[in-house]
């Protein structure tokens, strides 16, 4: 009897412990915590998933603080459908509240301005300092504005948009397309790989053309690619352009943009002739998010972050794990939201193992499934499975696995919608 009472007390206390950490989370907006067992920086597909899964994998025993400047998550995957006109911004936006309310993650709405890897602490733009045992950094990409002369000013004035980080520019570009007269030209320039979302520019061309076909049939879409050929799903995209958008979409490889002239809405190229368009979408080269570059974590050509693929721990700093688009990828690993979500689970399990004295998974697995909408209903996909190779210390795709759609089809359009719902929930809810 006495023993049972004793057990009840400890169970109740264990419950109290969890309850109090959830209570602290609820107060996050009022005060920033001074320390975190696990500090996650960046609330995209990588960071949000890592925050949630460290909580889940530790059975809610490890406290997690997530620093993210935006009030809600806006998805890059599916954002091309906003340009095509079949989705609105609300359809691709998810609040961060569930990470706090359901999973007990402490949310801090701020940006990290400095990482001190030796002191194991970060300084926020707002001035506060947070110490950590483990830092999970998922800063996404930065656009290298200086790689294209005149682009930064043209973007700041709102004239030449990127809309590559989904958000206000996504809607602004839709407005530009709506305002464009029939018979106009939309031109998108693609930087040399690697960049975020390999098939994204080609899907975007399809979505804009899909809108033009219905609303502005005399208009054109020009794809000006710095690469030698289409970098993702090439045969499928070319088939779609030839069969569904003949005379409307034109693809030109080996077009490396070097400058823009905002006065005339013209792009200049390294070799080829200048191109003028009514709506320009100029995508510069990309690299890891600024905080990673400033903190000397981008140790692959100053652009991407080398990691130990078994744990996603940086090769430049102990106890800092880097995820998502910002890493130096293993062979055939795309920079995608699905892949970032996959990285996050491997990293979360490794961090929980390290903090709990458990063994690190000797054979982690990553998957990627990437759907592209070629019109309002039909989709093509590319999928892959990546197994960790302990001997070569890298991820390798499994021979015979993965692949592409046979052809564009509506069934995968339905699955792509479900994919979006489920991955948003898996990352944020």
């Amino acid at each position, binding site marked *: 009897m006495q023993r049972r009472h004793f*057990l009840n007390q400890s169970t109740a206390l264990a419950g109290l412990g969890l309850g109090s950490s959830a209570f602290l989370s609820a107060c996050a907006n009022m005060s920033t915590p001074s320390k975190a067992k696990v500090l996650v920086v960046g609330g995209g597909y990588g960071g949000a998933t890592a925050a949630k899964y460290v909580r889940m994998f530790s059975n809610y025993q490890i406290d997690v603080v997530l620093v993210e400047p935006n009030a809600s998550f806006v998805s890059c995957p599916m954002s091309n459908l906003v340009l095509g006109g079949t989705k609105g911004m609300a359809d691709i936006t998810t609040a961060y509240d569930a990470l706090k309310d359901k999973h007990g993650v402490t949310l801090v709405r701020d940006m990290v301005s400095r990482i001190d890897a030796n002191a194991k602490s970060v300084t926020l733009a707002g001035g506060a300092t947070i110490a950590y045992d483990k830092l999970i950094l998922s800063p996404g990409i930065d656009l290298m504005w200086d790689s294209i002369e005149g682009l930064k000013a043209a973007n700041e004035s709102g004239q030449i948009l990127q809309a590559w980080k989904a958000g206000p520019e996504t809607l602004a570009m839709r407005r530009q397309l709506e305002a464009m007269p029939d018979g106009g030209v939309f031109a998108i320039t693609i930087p040399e790989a690697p960049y975020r979302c390999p098939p994204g520019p080609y899907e975007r061309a399809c979505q804009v053309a899909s809108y033009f076909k219905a609303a502005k049939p005399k208009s054109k879409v020009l794809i000006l690619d710095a690469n030698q050929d289409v970098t993702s799903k090439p045969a499928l995209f070319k088939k779609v352009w030839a069969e569904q958008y003949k005379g409307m979409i034109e693809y030109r490889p080996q077009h490396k943009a070097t400058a823009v002239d905002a006065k005339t809405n013209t792009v200049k190229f390294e070799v080829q002739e200048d191109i003028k368009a009514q709506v320009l979408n100029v995508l510069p080269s990309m690299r890891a998010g600024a905080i990673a570059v400033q903190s000397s974590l981008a140790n692959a050509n100053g652009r991407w972050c080398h990691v130990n693929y078994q744990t996603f721990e940086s090769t430049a700093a102990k106890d800092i794990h880097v995820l998502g688009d910002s890493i130096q990828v293993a062979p055939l690993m795309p920079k995608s939201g699905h892949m970032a979500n996959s990285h996050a689970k*491997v990293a*979360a399990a490794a961090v929980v*193992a390290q903090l709990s004295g458990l063994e690190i998974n000797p054979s982690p697995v990553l998957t990627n499934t990437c759907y592209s909408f070629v019109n309002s209903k039909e989709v093509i996909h590319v*999928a892959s499975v990546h197994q960790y190779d302990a001997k070569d210390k890298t991820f390798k795709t499994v021979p015979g696995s*993965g692949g592409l759609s046979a052809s564009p089809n509506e069934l995968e359009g339905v699955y792509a919608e*479900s*994919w979006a719902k*489920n991955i948003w929930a898996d990352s944020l809810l």
Partner: protein
Amino acid sequence: MRSISWFISWGLLGSVGFASTALAQTANGSASKDLHTRALAATCANCHGTEGNAAPGSAVPGLAGMNKVQMQTALKAFRDGTRPATVMHQLTKGYTDQQIDDINGYYAAAKR
């Protein structure tokens, strides 16, 4: 009052005791194995939902609580190409037999 604080102190020690027990388990590796299986099963969650619970209205089925034999039959049929699919025939070929069995066991036991 005194007896309550006595219980609280002992309760706290009790929690520490549980933590030590958890650490001791690492010797036999079962806690590690559980974590690894959970992370492996989570590679399905991107499309099939966290812990196998798909979002409402999802055309991609949830996996939690699925009959173990049925799921195993489906996964193997996807893999050997006897069951037509859009993507599952490509993904299942990337996993080992042991990994498929572990995933299968995990979701069959998961709560819907």
